[in-house]
């Protein structure tokens, strides 16, 4: 009996007990590797978020990856045009699970003040978005808040029906498209 007690004491000094889900979520939310999909003005403001003053590294997201294969957070920063939309979907499809999308700024979220013939009215028309950050462009603080919101979602394992029910908008309308073959 006393041996058991010693073992408990000893293990408490170097181990902790938790649930598997919780520890995985802890790892996921503190090591988000963003892919900066900067297309316009928001891309410049995203540089500030990464830069020395605001420093996204403090939230565990400093490893910027330009390859979708190595990233799990897609930062859509800037206007997505009709011409760009198929490429955005292809990038999203190439990302590995678990993956998250943060839409930065008015244009990415809704088309912004470009209610125009060549502008997609929000990137959620083609990919599932987890967090929308308003602003034109949003301040870096707002983007940090968006990332923290996402971290909370991961921690709480918030259900994401928009993601679960998502289907590529191009596979049905265009079965021969090379977009459909992306695995």
């Amino acid at each position: 009996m006393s041996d058991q007690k010693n073992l408990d004491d000893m293990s408490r000094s170097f181990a902790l007990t938790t649930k598997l889900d919780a520890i995985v979520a802890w790892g996921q939310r503190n090591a988000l590797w963003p892919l900066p999909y900067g297309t316009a003005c928001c891309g410049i403001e995203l540089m500030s978020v990464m830069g020395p003053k605001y420093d996204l590294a403090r939230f565990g997201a400093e490893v910027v990856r330009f390859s979708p294969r190595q990233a799990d957070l897609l930062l859509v920063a800037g206007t997505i045009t009709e011409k760009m939309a198929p490429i955005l979907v292809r990038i999203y499809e190439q990302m590995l699970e678990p993956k998250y999308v943060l839409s930065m700024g008015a244009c990415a979220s809704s088309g912004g003040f470009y209610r125009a013939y060549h502008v997609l009215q929000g990137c959620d028309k083609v990919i599932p978005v987890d967090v929308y950050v308003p602003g034109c462009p949003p301040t870096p603080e707002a983007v940090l808040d968006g990332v923290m919101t996402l971290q909370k979602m991961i921690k709480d394992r918030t259900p994401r029906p928009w993601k679960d029910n998502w289907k590529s908008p191009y596979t049905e309308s265009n079965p021969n498209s090379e977009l459909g073959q992306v695995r």
Partner: protein
Amino acid sequence: MASATHFPEVLKSDVLAKFGAEQFKFVTTPVGDNVIEAPKASTHALLQYLKEYAGFDFVMDVCGVDYPTRQKRFDVVYHLFNSKDFTRVRVKAQVADGESIPTATNIWKGADWFEREAYDMFGIVFDGHPNLRKILTHHQFEGHPLRKDYEADAQQHCDSVMPIHFNNTPDQRGDLLDNRFVPINIGPSHPAMHGTLRVMAELDGETIVRANCEIGFLHRCFEKMAETHPYNQVIPYTDRLNYCSAPMNNVGYCKTVERLLDVTIPPRAQAMRVVLCELSRVIDHIIAVGTGGVDLGALTAFFHLFTYREKVYSLFEKLCGARLTVSMTRVGGMAQNAPDGWFDDVLAFCDEMSDGVDEISKLMLDNKIFIKRTQGVCPISQQDAISWGYTGPLLRATGIAQDLRKSNPYYGYEQYNFSIPTGSNGDIYDRYCVRIEEMRQSISIIRQACKNMPGGDYTIRDKGIVLPEKKDVYGNIEGLMNHFMLVIKGLRPPVGEVYDATEAANGELGFYLVSDGSANPYRLKVRPPCFAIYQSFPEVVKGSMLADAIATVASMNVIAGELDR
């Protein structure tokens, strides 16, 4: 700008002596722009003559204007610039729907993309153009969006990406890929390429056999949006052209509208605009130099320089509340006065920044690796640079000291003491040298402007142009009525047209504005500096190494916002 009321006699008599008959109409607009209206059959000969004998060596812009009620509905407008005596002339020809006009690409190489854009936006066909196809809209787009009968919000979806393609010049193999070479696609959203640019190349080993770039991935319809918004509401859209130096676009646009209105803004507003512009030039060059280093693998410069950019953001935030897209100007002056002590803050920043520039100069320009990667790489000759329509730091890197701040001074630039840095080889290294030296010159201009900041009002007080101050709107009936009338009726410039240009960070930023007397611009064409520069990319990188092509794109400082508009 001095407003001449007559068309220059020498040019007129020369043209008449050469072409005889009274086929041309010579017009000088009320604000002093010289226009030659020519029948489309003789446009090509006239342009050739103007270039070779009248010294108009730059084609700054080619664009269309749509007048649906007219029998020949389109105007094709050429904006020419003479770099010897700094004069401009505009050539206009009328073209009916379905007709064609001879191309100017065999006179100036730089007409290439501008004509493609006119074709894409209006459906104007240019005879003999080597590669007349869509440039800004996606390949599944039907119709021509800048025609007046195209609805501004009629979206057309795109569901695929164009395969690798090249220009179809007559002596080339067209889009057929040669199986001896490796085709490669870079971008958009590629580790080695800036945001929305797409470059395609065929490689023989590491050497580029031919290259092509596809643009339009950020075409967000600036010109159509300008036609559907009142004059002052266009200002936020101009912010988002070259978003690295947003205030410069505000200034360029407002200056154009003010020129059409024929108003002069007060000295304080002029000096404030100069300070804003030069601060913007510094932070634009910070991005250009910083990302240029990143593309060569040097991250330090970027992070180091970004600290200074943050400081300018703080200054902007203190001035108007916004960091990046400031929309600080209004037609007629500035939106508001600078807060107390702001100019002292700017001066303090100048001291920090000049140390920063020296550091960055040592870090980059004296760095052996940087020198080896950039010196002698993809140079461009003076002749080619002019022919392509290069302006700004890239033109000056070839040794031509052309700068609108010196040649056609505005806002009192003639009273500031500064020099125009030039390079000698036109290679990538010289481009960065010019940019870094320009930062020093800009800091010197900012210091002079801040120390001699004139007092007085920050805007004109014309009731038909500028909204009254809030205390008048809420405090007295005249102010309220004035505010109401201006908001309901809108700012209405006289019927007419104007082209005006400022020296932006990348080169000549021109606005061609046509007004029909209503509250919205009838047509607003932007002449983006990097559009002209980037079109030379396939030719400039031909025969060089792939890694050098990446360095070239970075040195061109292509900003998608103004490239695709």
